[in-house]
């Protein structure tokens, strides 16, 4: 019951979706399944949020090290959630001027918009911008030409880095006629369109086969890792 039913559900859903690709009659069933799928994807966010709340509450109540930060997370979570669900600060739109509930939840000027614009946005974008610093220090301290493979990799990176700047194109004007292909931007185009293309295609084909065989294993019930271990 606890394992067989889920396996049957997974197999049925999967085969309906495979069929819907080939048999027009079942296309509508496939669409229905996808509609349900999208609802579950939204529920996953609710589950994620609730889990976060539970974990942080536990951390605070146990007074574990760093529980102060857990409290900050929890407050940030609850504030964002309540202003978002209550549409705090949202003004009605011209389509329905008397019903503010119909207006978008992230409207410019609303409280959720403020949190997004002035907290989420700078935090998220700076988080990734940090990597520029770390790439620089790794360039100096870790990217070594230890073996021929690493030399090939670093030389390609060198050409591409040059080719993707103004200097890369500048070389064209210096090189004699008929030799322009030696300029960094031409070489970069060549590397991207031939070697990178071929390598990535081999990887893509390999991944496609991997995805297909993993999916098949799930549908046949051979791979049950998603059911977790244990009986409960």
């Amino acid at each position, binding site marked *: 019951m606890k394992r067989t039913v889920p396996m049957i559900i997974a197999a049925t859903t999967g085969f309906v979706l495979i069929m819907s690709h080939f048999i027009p009659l079942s296309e509508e069933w496939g669409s229905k399944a996808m509609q349900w799928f999208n609802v579950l994807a939204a529920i996953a*966010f609710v589950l994620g949020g609730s889990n976060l709340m539970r974990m942080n509450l536990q951390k605070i109540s146990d007074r574990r090290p760093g529980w102060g930060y857990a409290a900050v997370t929890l407050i940030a979570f609850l504030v964002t959630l309540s202003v978002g669900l209550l549409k705090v600060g949202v003004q009605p739109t011209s389509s329905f001027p008397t019903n503010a509930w119909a207006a978008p939840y992230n409207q410019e000027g609303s409280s959720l918009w403020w949190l997004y614009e002035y907290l989420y946005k700078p935090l998220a974008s700076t*988080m990734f911008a940090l990597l*520029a610093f770390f790439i620089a220090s790794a360039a100096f301290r870790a990217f070594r030409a230890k073996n021929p493979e690493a030399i090939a990799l670093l030389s390609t990176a060198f050409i591409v880095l040059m080719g993707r700047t103004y200097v890369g194109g500048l070389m064209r004007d210096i090189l004699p006629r008929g030799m322009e292909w030696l300029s960094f931007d031409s070489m970069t185009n060549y590397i991207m369109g031939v070697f990178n293309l071929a390598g990535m295609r081999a990887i893509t084909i390999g991944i496609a086969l991997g995805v297909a065989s993993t999916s098949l294993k799930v549908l046949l019930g051979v791979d049950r890792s998603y059911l977790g271990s244990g009986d409960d």
Partner: protein
Amino acid sequence: MYQFLKTLDRRWIFLLILLAVAIPIYWGWQFPERPSPMVRSVFEAIENLPDGSHVWMAYDYDPGAQGELHPMAFAFTRQCALKHHKMYFMTLWPQGPPMIQENIDLLKREFPDLTYGEDYVNLGYRPGYEGPIKLAVTDLRSTIAADVDGTSLDDMPMTADVKNIQEMDLIINTSAGYPGTKEWVLYASTPYNIPTVAGCTGVQSPYLYPYVPRQLNGLLGAIKGAAEYEFLLLEAYPELRENPNAREALRRMGPQLLAHLVIIALIIVGNIVYFVGRSRGDM
């Protein structure tokens, strides 16, 4: 010298890269671009459509990638507006709606003649990763029945007759990862033969080359692709030259140049230190 480099505090490197990016921004360095054939094919895919074509604008990114993708997203929007294409904005990323909103604001500011609901519409976000593509490509209303303001699709001239994405003349996708370009290729472009062009982050673009040109008509790779594309746009539409906002990516190529040179120098110096150290036998 060797001893200094070998034990170099990495904060010096951080400072160096900070300066390499900050100085060109401060002085506003800009360079002319030489559009590559790949960028040209993206430009032409949009340019060669008859005026007023239906274009699906799938903008799948969040603020984490806006530094790379905003310039190309804005440039796509501008070109479509100049060509009077009908634009259907949608995102598969929960953090995406404000990114679309910035494009809508751009249209309101720079193209006041265009009307919402007739020339462009904001369909917002739907959860489900690739799920919404699978639905919208056969039946749009089964996942999106109204725009972000709650207006029913049947009540807007540009959406009233649209049944699904197969009716689009082109899909333009800007994406920062999953779900993104790969999913549009897998679930829309390949099975239904819908012409698609994409602009994506530097991390992603090498993996998308295998799809060009059959499954993707063209691809803009990161900020360099965006700069070349802006350059083509400025060349084709002189009226944009007065608009400093239309040069966003071109302005970014200054920091790009200096920072790339710094990174290359760091790799070379780092390797020299490594080899000197190895020959001295202290590594």
